[in-house]
């Protein structure tokens, strides 16, 4: 800069003679739209609209003399290289009166500083001689000072929350503080010109429904170098939501500054934060606060952080929690005032012995939040349904079966639902006491896992056997449900009849009897058929038995059938009539499988009568002995008495037997026998051994077969004599 000044001073000295005179031409400088007349040595400002832009000064020199004006060379510049001359072909020039030359000086702004240069142009005027004299040539130097400038616009803003003025550049987002709905917040915008030329604000626009410009002066407006321009942007949220907008500032015609706007409409000045699943999330008033999962008996805790995100103090006057299991520990003292930016924590807790999902409500001042918590685990819920409807039943509660007739069944569907949030392992489903009256059906294979929110349906079947009250206990793991029911009387038993043997019977028979209902009965029956023996002589023959043993046999009659099936698997059962004159009365008893007695008060019976009869000889042997023989007879007398025995032996030809027929009275002997206890185990049966001796000859030395060709024997009692039994004589 110093060198340029020295050079300029030297040039001035050379052209001093002309410079001391007014220049013979007018100088018009046009910068932008303004044209002004300047004099020699004048200063011409060249304001560029911005750095990197150009300012152009167009100079028109118009000769005002009467001679000729010549410019032998192009103008020269001394000073900043940001200046250049556009001679536009005007040089060298020689012009006459009124004629002009035009050229331009360009300023290309490279900084916001003011730069200067000096424009020098030599000229010569040939003045015509006055009075015939000679022409006079006057030389001179036109020297103009050029000053190049450029504006430098900076944008700043200030928010009411801090009132700090912060710079912002084009493209950078201006974030407004959270703003209550139905309220406003205004950001003060400042356009500062820190350059060397005035900045011209030609247009300021805003976009975004929730944003408006406020306090905006009339545009266009110039911002002088070092000056500033101020306006405001108002954010007016209409809803709790995020808003965006855009501010556009146009400077001159070439520069546009764009600033995105971001804001959030909130319902509170307080910001609520909680750490959930490792992330800190903001919870809006009215929103849900999820307390960490826990298990029954283990408290869960969540700290709710409250931050005053507003620009003024916020006061929390009330703090309350509702909902089973929810609470606040170490509640802060109220009222609690939070200055802007300050925060506090509200420790929320949840604890419950029950499993499931729980909700509550937290109130902070006028703002409320939904509280949510989960106690992890399984929880079984029970409900049942039948034809009468459905109902729930609590563990320990009672399900009453609908009354149903004996022999019929009623069912209740028991639904086991896992109302918890984890699978429920079920290891046992059983009645406390095994029962044929109450059955649990559709039990899954155990152990069984009942998924959360899943259900299991069991059928509970009640099959009453009596009209008495029945109670049972159903255990599903540790849960107990009482089951009660009562049966009603079944239909009356149809008529029934005996089949097979009837009426008069004889000794030593094995008879078949059957039992049949006159019509099918809808209920499965069990029963017994019992023989009552009424003997004539007070001795009950123990041989009177069913084939299954004893005097009673069990039977069943399947539902909707008629025939009794006895314990031998047949519809007939055999019995022995014995060998004692008796009346056998067979009496049935019918019960349901549950034991309800259906036997008529005077049931039909089967009477088998064994009348007193003459004895019968079943077997006889005659065997020789020393000096005689022994007659052995096996038979029975159902009167349990014997009278005369008649033995007839037919001698062989030539054998003289004095008494081939002999009659023995067995009354006393048999009377003694049949009065013994031992005889009673045989009924009327007997086995008689009678020894005989020979006398009056030597028959003892001979075999019976040698003596007798045949023989027979009969035995009598009070009824009559038996058939003759042929003796096997060998």
């Amino acid at each position: 800069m110093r060198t340029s000044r020295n050079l300029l001073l030297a040039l001035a000295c050379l052209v001093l003679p002309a410079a001391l005179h007014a220049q013979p031409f007018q100088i018009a400088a046009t910068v932008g739209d303004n044209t002004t007349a300047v004099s020699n040595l004048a200063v011409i400002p060249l304001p560029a609209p911005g750095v990197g832009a150009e300012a152009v000064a167009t100079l028109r020199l118009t000769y005002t003399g009467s001679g000729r004006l010549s410019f032998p060379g192009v103008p020269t510049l001394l000073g900043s290289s940001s200046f250049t001359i556009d001679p536009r072909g005007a040089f060298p020039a020689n012009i006459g009166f009124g004629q002009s030359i035009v050229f331009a000086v360009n300023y290309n702004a490279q900084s916001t500083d003011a730069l200067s240069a000096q424009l020098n142009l030599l000229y010569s005027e040939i003045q015509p001689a006055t009075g015939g004299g000679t022409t006079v040539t006057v030389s001179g130097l036109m020297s103009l000072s050029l000053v190049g400038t450029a504006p430098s616009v900076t944008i700043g803003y200030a928010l009411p929350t801090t009132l700090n003025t912060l710079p912002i550049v084009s493209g950078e987002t201006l974030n407004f503080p959270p703003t209550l709905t139905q309220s406003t917040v205004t950001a003060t915008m400042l356009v500062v010109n820190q350059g060397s030329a005035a900045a011209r604000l030609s247009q300021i626009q805003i976009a975004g429904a929730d944003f408006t410009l406020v306090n905006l002066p009339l545009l266009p407006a110039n911002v002088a170098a070092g000056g500033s321009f101020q306006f405001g942007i108002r954010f007016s949220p209409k809803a709790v939501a995020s808003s965006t907008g855009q501010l556009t500032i146009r400077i001159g015609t070439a520069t546009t500054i764009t600033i995105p706007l971001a804001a959030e409409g909130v319902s509170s000045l307080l910001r609520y934060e909680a750490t959930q699943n490792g992330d800190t999330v903001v919870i809006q008033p009215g929103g849900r606060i999820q307390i960490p999962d826990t298990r029954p008996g283990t408290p869960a805790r969540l700290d709710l952080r409250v931050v005053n995100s507003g620009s003024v103090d916020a006061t929390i006057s009330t703090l309350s929690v509702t909902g089973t299991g929810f609470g606040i520990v170490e509640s802060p003292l109220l009222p609690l005032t939070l200055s802007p930016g300050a925060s506090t924590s509200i420790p929320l807790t949840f604890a419950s012995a029950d499993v499931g999902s729980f909700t509550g409500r937290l109130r902070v001042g006028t703002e409320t939040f939904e509280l949510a918590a989960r106690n992890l685990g399984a929880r079984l819920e029970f409900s049942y349904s039948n034809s009468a409807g459905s109902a729930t039943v609590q563990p320990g509660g009672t399900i009453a079966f609908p009354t149903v007739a004996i022999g019929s069944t009623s069912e209740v569907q028991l639904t086991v639902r896992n109302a918890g949030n984890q699978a429920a392992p079920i290891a046992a489903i059983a009645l406390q006491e095994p029962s044929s009256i109450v059955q649990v059906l559709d039990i899954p294979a155990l152990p069984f896992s009942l998924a959360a929110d899943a259900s299991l349906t069991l059928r509970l079947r009640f099959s009453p056997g009596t009209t008495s009250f029945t109670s049972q206990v159903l255990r599903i793991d540790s849960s107990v449900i009482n089951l009660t029911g009562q049966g009603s009387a079944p239909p009356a038993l149809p008529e029934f009849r005996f089949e097979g043997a009837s009426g008069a019977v004889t000794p030593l028979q094995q008879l078949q009897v059957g039992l049949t209902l006159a019509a099918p009965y809808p209920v499965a029956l069990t029963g017994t058929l019992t023989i009552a023996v009424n003997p004539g002589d007070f001795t009950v023959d123990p041989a009177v038995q069913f084939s299954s043993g004893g005097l009673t046999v069990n039977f069943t009659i399947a539902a909707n059938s008629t025939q009794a099936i006895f314990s031998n698997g047949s519809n007939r059962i055999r019995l022995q009539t014995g060998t004692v004159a008796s009346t056998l009365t067979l009496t049935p008893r019918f019960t349901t499988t549950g034991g309800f007695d259906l036997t008529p008060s005077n049931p039909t019976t089967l009477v088998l009568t064994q009348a007193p009869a003459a004895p019968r000889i079943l077997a006889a042997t005659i065997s020789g002995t020393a000096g005689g023989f022994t007659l052995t007879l096996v038979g029975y007398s159902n009167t349990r008495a014997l009278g005369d025995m008649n033995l007839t032996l037919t001698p062989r030809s030539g054998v003289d037997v004095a008494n081939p027929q002999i009659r023995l009275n067995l009354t006393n002997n048999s009377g003694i026998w049949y009065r013994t206890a031992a005889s009673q185990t045989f009924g009327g049966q007997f086995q008689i051994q009678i020894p005989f001796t020979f006398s009056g000859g030597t028959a003892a030395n001979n075999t019976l077969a040698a003596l007798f060709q045949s023989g027979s024997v009969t035995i009598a009692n009070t009824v009559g004599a038996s058939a003759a039994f042929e003796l096997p004589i060998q």
Partner: protein
Amino acid sequence: MSWRLKFALLLATQFCWAAGTEIAGPLSGVLFDAPAKSLRRVVGVMGNAYVGAAVATELDWAQAGPQARLGFAVREGQLFAVSGLLTEPHWQALSLPIESRPLAWSPDGSEALLLNSADGAIERVWLAESEIRTEALTIPGDGKVLAAVLLNGHVAIFSRQNGETGDVWLWSAGQFSAVPGLSRITNLTLAAEGDHAYALEAETSTLVKLRVSAGQLETSRLRTLEGGAPAQLVVEANARAIYSLKTAVDGAAFERWAFEGDEHFRVDLEVLPERFASGPSSRYRLLEYARKAGEPFYFLDLTDGSTIFIPAGANQ
């Protein structure tokens, strides 16, 4: 002494009722109640009897022969023979393997043949007076004894198999003799009368009556059975009919084939018999089945083909 002299000496003979008349109750025999592991007396005559008190208990196996004169039992790894089961039982340990089982009983029950299933050895056991005696019987030659019958008079008939062939042997008077004219027979069974036996000729399924007379075996072919030989067969008295065991789909039954005409019918039973076994006499065949405690015993009466039961229920 001539018969004329003998008759002369008997002139004016008379017989008199002597003192000592005894009246008691008849016992039909002794049965092994396997579920109760006991031998129990049959009180009363067949058809009106019931199983009474136990004669012996805690037996692993037992069987009594006709009239219960002789029986066998296994207890604690020892085979016993027992006599007097209807009066005073007399037990005698036998030096025989416990696998030995009765192969045949004499009709009067005084004699039995035991077959050792392990080695096929035959042991004859009999009552002599009141003593139990035994002897081993060895049939000449090779072969596996399939069946045998004992007839009164210490006579036995054996059927043997040797590969595809067989032979029949008569044991009489302590001697074995091969029976000519008979090779392979099956279903050797004692007749209801007890004095003869029946068998089927295997190749022709011809029913053969076997009778021993004067130490010789007499055979008479009665009838050829159509449809082959049944697995189990007994013959009704007087050979009026035969009975075979048949297991039908709907239960167990006898099939009775009469020898006169084409009479053939089925006798349904309450139980599923597995085989015929000896009864209290040759008249009866025990129908062995998977009997449970308290269930009756069933018998086939070979005199008329009826089945009779003996209750063995809890009341006894």
